[in-house]
């Protein structure tokens, strides 16, 4: 248990350190094109090689770390935040509020997330904020479903009724008693969603609707590497491994956090 938290923390810490370093210094300019040094394999000069325009992959990975994780993180915050609020309100109030909210939610859920994001991106245009908003809205409905299900079982607990008996308002009960008891499914959802979003961002970037091209993100690097998969495997490997390690780190940290936040799991 402890080891998992440590590994997760280290990976996420490394990621943050990389992103912060990149803000002030990278080995090369991540956007500088050097057509004489195209598709070079890793060497002492270019640790992770160069891409099809001769740009230094390590510098791009470092510069992309910030963008990719920031997009993923804000999207998760938007999706989980909105999903939790709607889910708690619908599940706790029931009745017509529940019916209307869930009808809208189910309609959204009927579209594949990526398709919905695609449509929204087409409307708001390819900006980073637009991307976060579109992905957030696209993935919120599944959060709503899970949260509402959890709330339905929590609202039947007698401590919710006890809270009403005390004279607490509905909003207070929801914030103080219902929401905290949804934390366990929410952390699992959030960590899972993080991975999905990194990949969704790359898919949107691939279609030209993500972060606009010259700026590096792990997603668009991965997408751009596809034609050179056989000639220059490091081009796919570098961002791919970064995404994988980040997901492992976030998942481990999420699990540790969930246990930490639950008083019942505390070791005496």
């Amino acid at each position, binding site marked *: 248990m402890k080891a998992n938290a440590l590994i997760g923390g280290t990976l996420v810490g490394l990621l943050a350190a990389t992103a912060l370093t990149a803000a002030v210094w990278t080995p090369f300019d991540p956007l500088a094109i050097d057509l004489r040094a195209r598709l070079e394999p890793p060497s002492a000069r270019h640790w992770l090689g160069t891409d099809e325009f001769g740009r230094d992959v390590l510098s791009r990975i470092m510069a992309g770390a910030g963008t990719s994780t920031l997009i993923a993180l804000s999207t998760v915050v938007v999706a989980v935040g909105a999903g939790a609020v709607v889910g708690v309100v619908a599940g706790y109030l029931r009745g017509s509020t529940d019916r209307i909210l869930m009808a809208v939610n189910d309609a959204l859920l009927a579209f594949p997330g990526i398709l919905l994001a695609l449509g929204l991106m087409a409307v708001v245009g390819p900006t980073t904020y637009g991307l976060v908003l579109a992905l957030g809205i696209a993935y919120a409905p599944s959060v709503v479903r899970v949260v509402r299900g959890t709330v339905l079982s929590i609202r039947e*607990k*007698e*401590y919710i*009724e*006890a*809270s*009403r*008996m*005390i*004279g*607490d308002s509905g909003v207070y009960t929801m914030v103080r*008693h219902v929401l*905290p*008891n949804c934390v366990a499914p929410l952390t699992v959802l959030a960590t899972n969603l993080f991975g999905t979003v990194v990949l969704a961002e790359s898919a949107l970037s691939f279609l030209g609707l993500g972060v606009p091209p010259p700026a590096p993100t792990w997603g668009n690097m991965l997408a751009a590497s596809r034609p050179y998969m056989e000639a220059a495997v490091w081009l796919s490997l570098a961002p791919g491994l970064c995404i994988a390690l980040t997901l492992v780190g976030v998942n481990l940290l999420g699990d540790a956090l969930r246990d930490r936040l*639950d*008083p*019942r799991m*505390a070791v005496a």
Partner: protein
Amino acid sequence: MTGTGPAPLLEVERLRLVAAGPEPLVDDLTFDVGRGEVVALLGESGSGKTLAARAILRLLPPGVRQVGGRITLDGEDLASLPPSRLRRLRGAAVGMVFQEPMVSLNPALTVGAQMAEGLRLHTRLTRAEIRERCLAMLRRVQIADPERCLGAFPHEFSGGMRQRIMLASAMLLRPKLLIADEPTTALDTLTQREVLDLLVELTRDHGTAVLLITHNLRLVARYAQRAVVLRRGALVEAGPAAEILSRPRDPYTRQLIEALPRRGPARPLRREEPPVIVAENLSVVFPGRRRFLRTTPGRTAVDRVSLAVYPGEIVAVVGGSGSGKTTLGRAILRLVPASGGTIRFRGEDLLTAGPEAFRRFRLACQMVFQDPYSSLDPRMRIGDIVAAPLRHLPEMSRAARRARVAEVLDEVGLAGFERRYPHELSGGQRQRVAIARAIVRRPAFVVADEPVSALDMTIQQQVLALFTSLQKQYRFACLFISHDLAAVEQIADRVLVMQQGRIVESGTRDEVFDRPQHPYTRALLRAALMTEGPSAAAG
């Protein structure tokens, strides 16, 4: 031990079960069950009685191991048997009835399919023969329409009916031994009596021995020939049931018997002050479900009930499950909306009063819930849980609140528990926290919904005593909802008997218990074994 006749059917010798902890869960337990005999394994939760019984069939939960002792069934050492032989014994030679009728039948299979399973596995009967046997057995356990029952799913039956079906399927194979693990604890008193009577009758007819696992002394007195008392995994006392209950030798057994509620002197009825709460013709109808093109009819849970509770008195509402007593309590507190009638709190009509009057009412009333495991928010500390009601008293300072919480926790015997979380507490301690939360604001009226029925006997007695002493101290009016007549007899001033949403009898405690008028009240009292309980024998 018995010494008479042939060797006993089941012999358990020096059984020792351990898990990860340092203490063994069952230690050096020796007992036996004779052919056709009913032996009770008596103990409180955590005494190891269920584990000991499960060890017989080697159905121990993961992590629990048998490290010593011998279990012999019908001359065969069960430890030496290969798993395939053991599987053949399960069901066929040893049947089992579990505590929770709501979860021990598979909801996805019909009753018929589940009953037939055992016969298909253990006998070579044809389909028609199996069906015939199932029908006969269902008839035997008094299921109204056995033909329809075979094709029905478990959720169509009440708890009592399901327990009959469980019993029928266990007895179909005519086992030599039936292990009944708290078979009626989840049922109300009337159903409990019916199911147990049936169980004893059926096993007697088939010559089946019964190992009855229970925490209920009254059941032991009525149904068991011998009893084995367990405490913390060790045998405390064993012998003929009547002897143990009338002349207990061990102090722990004596303590168990003394924990049986008994009647105290009647308190004079107080009528000098006007009643705190008055309900008149109160009705609660749960609306029917809207289906395609039609609406199923609603269900009347409370039907034109009138009652008044005066300051400082405890009024008990008794009745079987489904009688509407819980709904009545909730309707009076306005936790469920009333469909008709009036509720007046200190003379103000709550159904027409404005939000301010309603708020005054909310702040002056409290509730103690049945399930101490669900009534406390698992993510809050005990101190915060008890302090929560004080949030609505803005004039109180932070220091005053903390002092009040400490004072109340001290009164319920949990001084210094502020920083703990609910999961660190036992059921009895949790219920004390729930009581502390209810009284911290000095309420005028408290509804207690089965506050002790989820607790062990000795703990029940402690919590009940605490509750009454606090009630005397704070002088709140109390509506005590319970199906446990013994507890009611001990603490109530007046009693209301509910059946199918109506009050069928009401009066002072002594009137209702000594001179019951309504046949339903009489049936309840008979089922509660109040007349032939061991308290009379011990007293």
